[in-house]
């Protein structure tokens, strides 16, 4: 287990399980701090008001997943999370 490994929330229902991992956000918690877009530039851009726009596709393993994990770990509001389907 690497340091600061983000907690993963399991989806019990909803989208069909297909073994993919998705980067998600609770927008009601997010304060638009913006660190995430620096740590995960391949997956996150900021909108006109500084709030993150997430790539909705499955996060590929490797570089993108490492970026996603870093962004989740760094979010001061804990608004970002990874969802395994």
């Amino acid at each position, binding site marked *: 287990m690497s340091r600061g490994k983000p907690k993963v929330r399991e*989806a019990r229902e909803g989208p069909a399980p297909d073994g993919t991992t998705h980067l998600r956000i*609770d*927008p*009601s918690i997010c304060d*638009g701090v913006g660190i995430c877009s620096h740590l995960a530039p391949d997956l996150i851009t900021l*909108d006109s*008001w*500084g*709030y993150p726009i997430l790539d909705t596709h499955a996060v590929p393993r490797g570089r993108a997943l490492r970026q996603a994990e870093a962004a989740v770990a760094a979010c001061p509001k804990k608004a970002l999370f990874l969802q395994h389907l």
Partner: protein
Amino acid sequence: MSVDAGAPEIAPSQMRGILGAEVAIVSRDDTELLTGVRRHDLVTHRSEFGAHPGTVVGLTARLLDDLGAVALTGRGGGHFPAAVKWRSVAAAGTGGAVVVNGAEGEPGSAKDATLLQTRPHLVLDGLVAAINAVQAVEGVVWLHEGAEATTGSVTLAIRERVAAGEPDPPIRVVLAPSRYLSGEATSIIRTLEGGPTLPRFVANPAQPWSDGYPTVLVNNTETMARAAVVAARGAENYEPTSLLTVISRGYRRVVEVPHTVTIGQVVAEHWADMPHGAPSAVLLGGYGGSWVSWSDIASLPVDIGALRSAGLSIGAGLIGPLPSQACGIEEASRLVRYLADQSARQCGPCVFGLAAVAELCDDLTAGKLSPSGRKKLDQFMAEISGRGACRHPDGAIRMLTSALQVFADDVSVHRKGRTCGARVYGIMPLPGEGT
């Protein structure tokens, strides 16, 4: 079992339905003053709709199948299949609550108030049938605080049932703050869990309650009344109808129509301005719905499937015709401002995005929107959709997107540094504006 294909057309005169041929007249900004439909007391209700659902042998076993067979969808606006939702809650566990959502947040709509004030026992029968079907332990009637006539009718109905010794599970009335988003399903669930009455983000839409909390099934008032009709009459005798609220400048009408009727026929019969000419367009579904030009919408039936094929939804059943003397873009801008103000102020894209869009819409109607401002408006609209915890911002953007298309002529007049000079304002009612 299916009643979709080949079902005999129902002439409105033969329709039994929920309201039947009765038409409710409701004031523009207040559902407290409602006339035209007689209230069913418990005795009348039982003679029209039969025995208490708890006493019908085999009902729980067949009801879920019957809801699927008649393809009942959520009439709060989302039109999610009721049978799928009920099954999902039943599968998640027993012992929770079922909520009938009567906090009619859609400011133009009055159908739920009409049902609760005139057919309260039908709604409560649906609630009881749902409690039994998903094996919940209690029922909640969720109403806006200040909706005194509606609350009075529901509490009287509960007293009538207790006095008659009807086998109801525990049912309580819960009053919500009188705001647009109080009727959002996650606002309700959050409140029942002891939290604030605000929408919340759910990672898994099939399980909108929090881990460790009891299951909650939330259905709109009309959905619940329709479930009661299916329970009472069976899928094969269920008449596919919809309750609609038609907005005129002096009052609103709530009517029940079979799905073969066209929107043109509904407007011709129930819109007060029709003798002065057809509307230029109709706002369909709700304030987060779509504007459609009169020529495109008049021949479309009220049928949910037919509207979906045309990329439209009957939503919460709102029909808002725009008089031809009114300016569509001014009306749409007014609604965008209202929706922006009604943000729950939780999600950045909604709080800041809708406010920015409303600002640009004000510039547009004032004839002050530059070409770069127009580009900015398009960019903001594209950025906001799908990014709130609830669908509130999506609805506002959908409505504005349709307005910019349907009222393209009005837009070009306003963009040339002028205004359109329309003499008619404020067609759609907004809370607190008076009539």
